């Protein structure tokens, strides 16, 4: 619910099933009276819970001291009155001041603890944020850009727009987009500080200014509603265990009439000749393996459904094949070599037998063989899709 007289962006809710009381948005009241309903709701929530009450402030963008004191007072009084109650406040590493302010409460009342919702926020994240993977990511962007630079205008990219690249990774796509299309504004967000540090360095090295790199959680962004004409989110829905949450946020930040553009793969459709069978086997197994890490690398053709379910209209879907013939075959081979290393490590982490891993690796090596063969052909298919937020 929203509270009259306060920012329309302020929302609070209590989920009795999970015992989570959440505060989100901006709450800067002049007096406690203005938030009396919210205080009453928190008191009621405390009365209803048994054991642990989770107070979720991950998306609390602003809270003044008036509100802070009022909410904290209720929590402290409740803990003093009920020895059985524990309060866990869940903050976000993105909103720095919340962690600092709420962390004091544990010193006042040991029944209150503060948890920072942070690094392991989706399964498999540590693999894709491994900095040794950066050269592979750069090569991937270089290869996909050859296709996307002509695809993007069909999906709404044009000069002068405000755009956001969510899950920007090492930021190279944002740099290419800025150079090619000259948007008026680019915000590039990612949840990996090493990737953002790399992105800022690359931008500085190439004299690129004007890209606003920001650390953030794509499923709980600080960015305000209806800000951007065009929002991109590339190769990310497929590695996030709750893609619908990401899409909800992408929908929120794009302007009515603006478009959200996503790219995703269907890894089992990676192909090559010669040695097609070995290649096919490995990529089928790859899709199966990654499902254990809650990644759906078969998501590409499902893009239309995801966009429709998120509320978008005028949905456009197309696919393209990155191949060894696009540029230097060695670039393609280098990417596959990077995949072999990363995915073999994930297979080992999952407990696959050494014989499996050997055969699994062989499929990648055969893909490289096909890419570098003078008469060979190797492909990596990608689905590009976009939807319009209704006016």
């Amino acid at each position, binding site marked *: 619910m929203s509270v009259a007289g306060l920012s329309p962006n302020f929302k609070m809710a209590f989920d009795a099933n999970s015992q989570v009381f959440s505060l989100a948005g901006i709450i800067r009241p002049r007096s406690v009276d203005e938030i009396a309903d919210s205080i009453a709701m928190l008191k009621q929530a405390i009365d209803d819970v048994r054991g642990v009450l989770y107070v979720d402030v991950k998306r609390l963008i602003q809270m003044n001291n008036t509100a802070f*004191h009022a909410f904290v007072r209720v929590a402290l009084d409740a803990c003093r009155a009920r020895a059985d109650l524990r309060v866990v406040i869940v903050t976000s590493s993105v909103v720095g*001041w919340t962690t*600092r302010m709420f962390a*004091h409460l544990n010193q006042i*009342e040991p029944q209150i603890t503060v948890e920072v919702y942070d690094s392991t926020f989706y399964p498999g994240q540590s693999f894709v944020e491994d900095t040794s993977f950066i050269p592979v990511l750069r090569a991937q962007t270089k290869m996909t850009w050859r296709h996307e630079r002509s695809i993007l205008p069909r999906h709404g990219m044009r000069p002068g727009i405000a755009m956001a690249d969510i899950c920007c990774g090492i930021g190279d796509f944002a740099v290419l987009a800025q150079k090619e299309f000259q948007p008026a504004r680019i915000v590039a967000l990612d949840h990996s500080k090493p990737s*953002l540090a790399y992105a800022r360095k690359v931008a500085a090295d190439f004299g690129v200014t004007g890209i606003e790199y*920001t650390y*953030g959680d794509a499923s709980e962004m600080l960015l305000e509603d209806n800000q951007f004409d065009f929002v991109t989110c590339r190769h990310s829905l497929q590695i996030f265990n709750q893609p619908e949450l990401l899409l909800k946020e992408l929908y929120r930040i794009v302007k009515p009439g603006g478009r959200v553009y996503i790219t995703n793969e269907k890894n089992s459709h990676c192909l090559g000749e010669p040695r097609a069978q070995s290649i096919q086997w490995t990529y089928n197994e790859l899709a199966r393996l990654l499902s254990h890490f809650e990644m759906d690398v078969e998501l590409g053709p499902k893009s239309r459904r995801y966009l429709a379910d998120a509320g978008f209209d005028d949905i456009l879907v197309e696919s393209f094949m990155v191949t060894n013939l696009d540029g230097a075959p060695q670039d393609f081979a280098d990417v596959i070599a990077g995949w072999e290393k990363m995915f073999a490590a994930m297979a080992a982490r999952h407990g696959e037998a050494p014989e499996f891993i050997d055969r699994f690796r062989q499929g990648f090596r055969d893909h490289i063989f096909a890419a570098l063969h003078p008469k060979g052909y190797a492909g990596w298919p990608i689905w590009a899709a976009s939807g319009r937020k209704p006016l």
Partner: protein
Amino acid sequence: MDVGSSVPAEAVFEPLLQFEMEMGTFLSEWQHCDHLSTYLARMISHNRADPVRHSNFFSSALNELLEVSFRGGSSSGHIGLAIYRNGPTERVQITFPCPPGQIPFYREAVSKIDRSDAHSRYLDAISTDMAPSRESILLDLAINFDASIRIEENTSPAVTLIVDLPLEGLVS
């Protein structure tokens, strides 16, 4: 309302922005604190390493200073705000008219920030106060935003708070 950049500052602090508003107008609407802090934070954060998060952090601190001015200010005269930068630190200089009898209270609140018991007094304020006092707000800025705060004397019945906020380091 006037936005410019011509206020003299200490040599090491680069002026970023100056803002002035009739106090009566400022006091006419509580939401001015929120709107001004959000807008000004965005303006001065655009060239920070992480503009979105710097703006969020800075807005939080600036809003508290504006709310102090709103609650303690008198309606005649002007509220003046200047923001400067020196490396990772923004300096906020805020001047607002207030009843002469109130000035010693601001002076006392500022003087307590650097005392060794500041942290325990802040915790005490959180655990016992129903509403934040101006002292606990200044303590909040000092403890949660690593702010250094001083007060400047005026000939007119006004208070000038000078608050240095090293937020770039905190955000990064």
